């Protein structure tokens, strides 16, 4: 062996050694998810867990802060024209995609147009009011709208605002979700279906000073007890969707931390008013019967019995801390006598049997049983029918229910929590409530950006919807996270998605 090859071997050895030592110093955050995400393409993704993964992969034009204010992320500022028919967005300079391509106005135009036109896009409906995207200069785009659309900005804080590398998107086409290339703090490494999604720190991230962890592994573990056991045994550092009944145990454990927030969504009961034959009941025909049903329920007791009181009880589609909450319509207290009187007034012979469809999970089943015994005292006979989730969607669509327990994950803009449920043609209006006046108000509220004016419109909606509508809102579920004390900087955001910037993992 000559000197040269000795040196070469020595160098190789040293490189290997230094690589090994960086590997030891690497920090890896392991996050337990309640489900396996679907396709990782922001244009075609549908699931909540998918959004959790995207918050490390794909930055958006805008984001929300912990008070639900909209702030710039890849955009630095925005301006809506006086007539509301266009929005000009200034983009952040010096941003790079994971493949090194620069983020420019052209790239933003490409991403938005992809959301609008790609076959199988789930974003089209969210931003359908965009007519075309204009490039004003290299860092400014203007969105021309068909009609003014107040929820647009909020839509751009979620997947519709995620920017993808045009080069990678063109190269991968339909398969973009198998190797997404965005401009987020972490870049995609690998995915093994139902086992893990691995991402690693992106060296050229525009805000890299806030990224402290080298790698993140997302692991889907469906069973919540097993997920918690994995956190306790150290196979996970952070988990989402802890069961409310496990929360006290976690908060007492010195080796774990419990972090809670309140969701943007809600749990409610949809009543069938005009969807098929099952709508042929006093519940559908007389709003007094629907009020009697609401008055028979004690929301606080449900919350105490099933959730240790950790959820936020409410009777509206946005929570008490939301700017659009209507304080004029507080949650009614349980009043069995009044409920009975209303039923009598409506000429209903009790007990009134109702088909109550409940998607199968331990918590919803428990809620249904508590409701059953409460409503019985007022003269309702709830026939609980526990149904597997996918089947329940079909049954709801066909109108094969009289009461349907439905959860909504919630949206940043109030429109996202009401429009699809209360408008005549709304795709989630399973009870088929239809009122031209409400439709007009909901449409109008979409065109106005001033908060007080919009709120006044929603007040008129609430006036009718809460007295004769097809949904009884019960509570906003608590967002429950558990993590090891080694993890620092974790905050629950209103949308429940895990922001990975500012997180630190100690020894």
């Amino acid at each position: 062996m000559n000197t040269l090859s000795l040196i070469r071997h020595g160098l190789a050895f040293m490189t290997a050694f230094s690589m090994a030592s960086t590997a030891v110093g690497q920090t890896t955050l392991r996050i337990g998810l309640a489900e396996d995400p679907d396709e990782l393409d922001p244009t075609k993704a549908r699931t909540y867990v998918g959004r959790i993964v995207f918050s490390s992969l794909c930055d958006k034009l805008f984001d929300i802060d912990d008070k639900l204010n909209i702030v710039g992320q890849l955009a630095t500022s925005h301006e809506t024209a006086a007539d509301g028919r266009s929005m000009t967005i200034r983009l952040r300079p010096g941003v790079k995609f994971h493949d090194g391509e620069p983020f420019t106005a052209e790239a933003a135009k490409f991403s938005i147009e992809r959301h609008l036109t790609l076959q199988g896009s789930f974003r089209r409906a969210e931003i359908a009011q965009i007519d075309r995207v204009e490039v004003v200069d290299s860092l400014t785009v203007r969105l021309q709208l068909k009609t003014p659309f107040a929820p647009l900005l909020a839509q751009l804080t979620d997947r519709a605002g995620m920017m993808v590398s045009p080069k990678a998107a063109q190269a991968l086409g339909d398969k973009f979700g198998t190797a997404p290339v965005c401009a987020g703090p972490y870049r995609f490494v690998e995915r093994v279906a139902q086992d893990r999604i691995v991402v690693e720190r992106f060296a050229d991230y525009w805000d890299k000073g806030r990224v402290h962890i080298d790698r993140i592994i997302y692991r889907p573990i469906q069973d919540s007890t097993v997920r918690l056991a994995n956190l306790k045994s150290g196979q996970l550092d952070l988990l989402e969707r802890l069961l409310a009944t496990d929360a006290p145990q976690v908060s007492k454990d010195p080796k774990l931390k419990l972090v809670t927030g309140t969701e943007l969504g809600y749990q409610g009961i949809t009543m069938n008013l005009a969807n098929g034959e099952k709508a042929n009941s006093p519940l559908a025909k007389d709003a007094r019967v629907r009020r009697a049903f609401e008055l028979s329920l004690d929301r606080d007791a449900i919350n105490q019995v099933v959730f240790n009181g950790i959820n936020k009880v409410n009777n509206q589609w946005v929570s008490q801390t939301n700017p659009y909450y209507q304080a004029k319509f507080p949650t009614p207290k349980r009043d069995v006598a009044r409920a009975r009187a209303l039923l009598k007034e409506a000429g209903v012979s009790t007990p009134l049997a109702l088909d109550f469809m409940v998607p199968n999970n331990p918590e919803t089943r428990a809620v249904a049983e508590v409701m059953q015994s409460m409503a019985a005292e007022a003269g309702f006979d709830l026939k609980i029918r526990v149904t597997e989730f996918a089947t329940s969607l079909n049954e709801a669509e066909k109108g094969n229910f009289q009461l349907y327990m439905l959860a909504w994950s919630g949206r940043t803009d109030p429109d996202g929590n009401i429009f699809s449920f209360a408008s005549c043609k709304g795709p989630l209006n399973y009870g088929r409530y239809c009122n031209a006046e409400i439709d007009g108000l909901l449409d109008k509220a979409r065109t106005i950006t001033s908060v007080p004016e919009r709120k006044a419109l929603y007040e008129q909606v609430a006036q009718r919807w809460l007295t004769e509508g097809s949904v009884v809102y019960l509570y906003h579920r608590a967002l429950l996270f558990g993590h090891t004390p080694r993890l620092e900087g974790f905050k629950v955001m209103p949308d429940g998605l895990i922001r990975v910037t500012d997180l630190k993992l100690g020894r």
Partner: protein
Amino acid sequence: MLNFLPRRLLQLIPTLFLVSVMIFLLQQLLPGDPALVMAGEEKDAEVIEQIRRQYRLDQPLPMQYLYWISGVLQGDLGESMRIKQPVASLIADKLPVTLQLATMAMAFALLIGIPAGILSAVKKGTVWDSAANVFALWGLSTPNFWLGILLIFLFSVQLGWLPASGWVSPFEDLGQSLATTVMPAFVLGNAIAAVLMRHMRSAMLQAMSADYVRTARAKGLRERAVVLRHALRNALTPVITLGALEFGTLLSGAVLTEQVFSIPGFGKLIVDAVFNRDYAVVQGVVLVTATVYVILNLLADVLYVLVNPRLRG
């Protein structure tokens, strides 16, 4: 001696054809519309239409079947609607996981079940027999998910000896791989061991009272030779059939055990696919496991012939 093989192989063709039709039809009995599940929370009508067109859900059933089976015959099992990966590659990913788990579980089952069965038959009526029967009762009546969770709490949460979940390839890190699979393999093997033990015991008892065993004893063979060489060999036939069937079941995935230990195997794949109405994945996995099952059955028949000379015609 194995001249029945070509005929049996030919019989596989109609069997698998019928299986493919059954899979397809049974799946249609599932309530729920894949397009509705796929459409996410918003359920936009346009999107639902588009999904129906893209996955040919709007076409008549026989046509859907023809599209699928013609793909299968060309080696294309289709694509997962949910994560847009080819079904064949999903199966290829999960196969080593399930294979390893099944083999280890079977090893546990055989190592526990066969000796326990022999012991309790030979020592019938003694403490050994009762102990083996108690074990069998326990093994049969303990639900897998419960035993799994208890093991996790003991060995992962309390003692911290074994990882609570996941799977590591043995080619990547053998020690870690064994550490992640030993608990689930024991849970699965334990239940099968109980079944094997019961069958081994009754087959052995029958064999031990047979004439040839009395003859063997009469000619002065040692008890050990009588049990192992004469009785056991004859008693093994039913146990082999059973073992092969149990192994086939293991290969079709262990749903609950895989869920509890978060092992990405066949069971988890198919359950998730059923809940998401991801038809192509359900069809692909069931077809592959059915094929494996049928082939294992054939192998069991071959094994019989090797063990039992009387069947060599």
